[in-house]
């Protein structure tokens, strides 16, 4: 009997082993190695000098790092509000548009599929004062008073946030639409028979049933936006720290052979994101229980 159990365990483990091996090599090892590197002053090539928690102390004193977190937070605020409300509104619209739904789905999902670098460079060409494609369009359609330097110091952070929303709302749209389509139609029919109007149906059926999906979208938006980087790099290159985000700082430190510091920054950012994500899940659970 025992032999059989041991054999069974070995066989089961043999099936799991390849996945475990891959997970260990590509996830666990880099995670722990990053932590070890963060305790060293290393160029990432051959030198490793142990410095303890000096990098972490250094990061807390670094104004540029906190500024980048503020920038990331600002872009995230726009993504959470403008981007997700837009995605939710469009998902609600498409959910009802049975015949044309598929076409809209494709249209709204094209942007997230495109490379972030391409979107960044494309939007840069449109927004720059030279050649000034957007400004030329505005002039032609009689909105000349709106012409301005969209990537200038006054607007660059807001412009970056809106471009990020424009690129990112497709993901939220698809997830919310999928969530909406799981709500049984009979619930709405029963509510209609009971005399519930659209607002009541939305607040009493759609919103509570969609809450788990909404909280997932919020967490994904938070994680995705705080780690946004490639599009911003292509669009503004940081604009003298005005649009510098945490991952851009990590990237620059990696390029500057400050691997230990970059790893410490990565760990702090990861910790902040994990903390926010768990808080969000706890909040969503609380809302669900209340409702």
């Amino acid at each position: 009997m025992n032999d059989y159990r041991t054999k069974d365990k070995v066989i089961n483990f043999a099936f799991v082993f390849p996945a475990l091996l891959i997970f260990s090599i590509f996830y666990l090892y880099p995670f722990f190695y990053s932590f070890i590197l963060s305790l060293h002053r290393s160029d990432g090539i051959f030198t490793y000098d142990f410095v303890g928690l000096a990098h972490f102390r250094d990061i807390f004193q670094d104004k540029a790092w906190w500024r980048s977190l503020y920038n990331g937070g600002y872009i995230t605020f726009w993504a959470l509000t403008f981007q997700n409300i837009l995605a939710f509104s469009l998902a609600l619209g498409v959910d009802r548009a049975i015949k044309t739904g598929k076409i809209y789905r494709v249209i709204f999902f094209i942007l997230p599929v495109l490379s972030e670098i391409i979107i960044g460079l494309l939007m840069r060409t449109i927004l720059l004062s030279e050649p000034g494609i957007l400004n030329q369009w505005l002039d032609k359609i009689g909105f000349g008073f709106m012409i301005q330097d969209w990537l200038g110091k006054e607007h660059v952070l807001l412009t970056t946030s809106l471009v990020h929303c424009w690129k990112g709302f497709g993901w939220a749209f698809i997830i919310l639409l999928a969530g909406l389509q799981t709500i049984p139609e009979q619930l709405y029919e029963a509510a209609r028979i009971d005399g519930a109007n659209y607002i009541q149906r939305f607040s009493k059926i759609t919103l509570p049933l969609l809450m788990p999906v909404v909280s997932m979208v919020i967490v994904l938006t938070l994680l995705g936006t705080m780690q946004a980087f490639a599009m911003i790099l292509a669009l503004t290159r940081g604009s003298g720290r005005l649009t510098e985000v945490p991952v851009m700082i990590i990237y620059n430190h990696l390029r500057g052979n400050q691997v230990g510091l970059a790893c410490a920054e990565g760990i702090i950012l990861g910790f902040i994101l994990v903390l926010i994500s768990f808080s969000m899940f706890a909040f969503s659970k609380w809302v669900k229980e209340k409702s």
Partner: protein
Amino acid sequence: MKRLFGFLSIFIIIFTIPLVFSGCGSKKPKDKKIIIWHWMNDRKDALENLASQYKNLTGLTVEFKLFSPPDIYSQKVIAAARSGNLPDIFGILGEKKTMSSFIKANHVLDLTPYMEENDKSWENSFYPQALEVNRFRKNNSYAIEEGIYGVPIDLTVMEFVYNKDIFTKAGLDPESPPETFEEFLSYAKTIKETLGINGFICGWGEGWLINALAVEWAINLMGEDKFIQTIEGKVPYTDKQWVEVFSMFLKMEHSGILADNITSMINKESEDLFSRGKAAFSFNGSWAVNVYKQLAPDLNYKFFPLPKISDNYPVKIWGGAGSSFMLHKFSKNKNDAVDFLKWITSNNQQNFLSKETNNLPSIKNCQEGLPEVLIDIVDVLDSLTHPNIWPINENSRVLEAFNSGLQQITMGLKTPAEVCAEIQKIKERVSTK
């Protein structure tokens, strides 16, 4: 269970039999071949042409393997070094500190004995500044044994460049570029006011470009010694001469000559706009000759030395070895590889490279293949400066604050004094550490 073991047996047989038999064949003697890794996309054809000439001449195969863009190349070389798979010859991109890491890890051959053969004939053929980039002097700050660890194959220099046609249109003498900062500002303003064309454009979104210009002005104002003393921590960045250097960028911003979005512009973008006549002046490297040739073959332009901000010290030009090759310390083809490097840095081959790639040669008395626009630059090759030839380099955290501070001044976000104070604060923090 039996089925499972059956599957496993078949799996093992399929994968092990070819391995077993692959070792049984008769071994063919491999042809001797020198492998060279590089990142120079623009020089790919010229280098391969040279390799084929060398094969015809000596019968030895030289294979140039291109890995581009440079970021990818750098990672490739580092990974190869760590796994012990470096080729016979390779280049190291980045600061001298990176090169020193490779040397410390025993990956780079000291070429001094080869350079010193025949009364140092190979060593003396190079421009000293080109070789200096690959040389480690006695008691250097990197703790590397004295020696020459690389072979420069070309030179790059960073200078101001102006569009002669725009000068003519604005009523300025196209053969008289500005010599002082005031003249430069006045010419650029005239062009902006009369033609509506940007006075100055540069890829200042890339920190190193704005840094190079600030360093040239700093050396002109305070001299190379005081500049080095700042890096050593003996002179603070809050020194009034540093504030004055940073003020030049504020003056440029206030005069309205800077192109819009200059601090988010990459060099490729600025090269494109300059070649399309969208700006009168730019600050760029000698490699731009090749770029402008491809973008606008008829562009009428000329390089000129830094418009000086003082008469205190002579102008130094940012430049040195453009691209260098290092020899793998444990290469089996060491002597053949050295012979090839000697051949590629001899007169005919350097002329060929200059002609084909529009780059400055790394050896002296070799200007046959140079385009006219580069011939003027040859005169300044005795007054070059570059981080890789300084005895000490600035900490990268300080450099980061330096470059972004300059960007913030040109965006009108901070004053020169504020930026200098911030840099000094970071300098003190990293020095204490």
